[in-house]
């Protein structure tokens, strides 16, 4: 089937910042993304697990964003502005998508 080049950006970020990140994305015109739950993880700021968390203070989410390659930089700039001073990681992989008109 006909597919189209795209980038898959995966941003793992603290739950309290989710709204900020998605709002920034929307402001940048990135209107397509998916938020996945994260059970736990480990990084420079230590290990954590969501189960039994009283607060979501230390919870995280994964925001996946499929985007046209030419719009990648704009997205990274704006995403980074949010993530910069915070815990979290950003990764990019090459991908192909069906129905390019959607991206």
């Amino acid at each position, binding site marked *: 089937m006909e597919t189209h080049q795209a980038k898959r950006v995966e941003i793992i970020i603290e739950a*309290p910042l989710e709204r900020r990140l998605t709002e920034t994305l929307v402001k940048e015109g990135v209107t397509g993304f998916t938020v996945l739950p994260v059970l736990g993880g480990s990084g420079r700021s230590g290990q954590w697990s969501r189960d*039994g968390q009283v607060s979501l203070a*230390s919870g995280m989410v994964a925001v996946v964003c499929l985007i046209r390659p030419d719009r990648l930089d704009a997205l990274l700039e704006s995403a980074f502005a949010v993530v910069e001073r915070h815990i979290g990681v950003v990764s990019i992989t090459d991908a192909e998508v069906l129905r390019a008109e959607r991206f």
Partner: protein
Amino acid sequence: MDTLALAINNLISPIILSFVLGLCAALARSDLTIPEAVAKGMSIYLLFAIGFKGGAGVAAHGVDGTLIATIFAGIILSFALPFIAFALLRVMTPFDTINSAAVAAHYGSISIVTFVAATSVLEGQGLDPEGYMVAVAAVMEAPAILSALWLVSRSGGTTTASSGLYREIMLNGSIVLLVGSFLIGMITGEKGLNQIAPFIIAPFQGVLCLFLLDMGLVAGRGLRETRGDLGLGAIGFGILMPLIGSIIGLAAGLLIGLSSGGVALLMTLSASASYIAVPAAMRVALPEARPSIYLTLSLGVTFPFNLTIGIPLYASLAATFTGG
């Protein structure tokens, strides 16, 4: 001695022992966990129940004149306590400005579960505190955050606090639910309370047990993972600060002329440290502050201290000074 008797009696209640069970299970690295959704569900239940009961209480006893005064006192305490906490932290701990300010914010704000536990202890003693203390708890949640952010910016640190943040803090789920259910209780009063009493009163203590079991698990895991991060100074602060807070709360309560139970609750609020509203706000506004420090101090040191020793102590001090 009365206090001691109270303390012992308090210690062997199902509520405390459930917390201890959770703590031990976590420290022993058991895989016992309460699903996040269930923990959130229980906290929603507790907030709704405590808010509703408080409102119904006000509807029953009417709004006595001290209501406004107590609300104000609460706001002022929440603004002021962080400064004391901050000063103490700079002296007692090696924490930098940002971490000290973040911790200070937690101690100016309140822990609703500590408040709930204190309420049920007081009711166990036949006291019934002013219903509007719930509203006081609600107004004390947020101001401390502003004080902390001011402390940081004053000392040249930068915060990532956006305008949106303040709205978020004020509309924080737990505040909205607490205030909302308080109003519902006030409006529907006795009649409303009777309708849902089998839900919000009868099983309350039991739900609180399971919730504290979860708190114990979380506190224990926190302690295990961050053993290194807290020096003796920090731990000392986690015990000294609630005592100082409670004394100030005592003074305020006596000035206003609250009932013995009301004074005890104001002391508890001043002594308790937040672990829901404030941590989330800190992640947004002071990302460089380390959660392992403020969460462990609040959940792992101060919360257990208040639950076991603090509450009965505050209750008996309140009783003594109000002559109640």
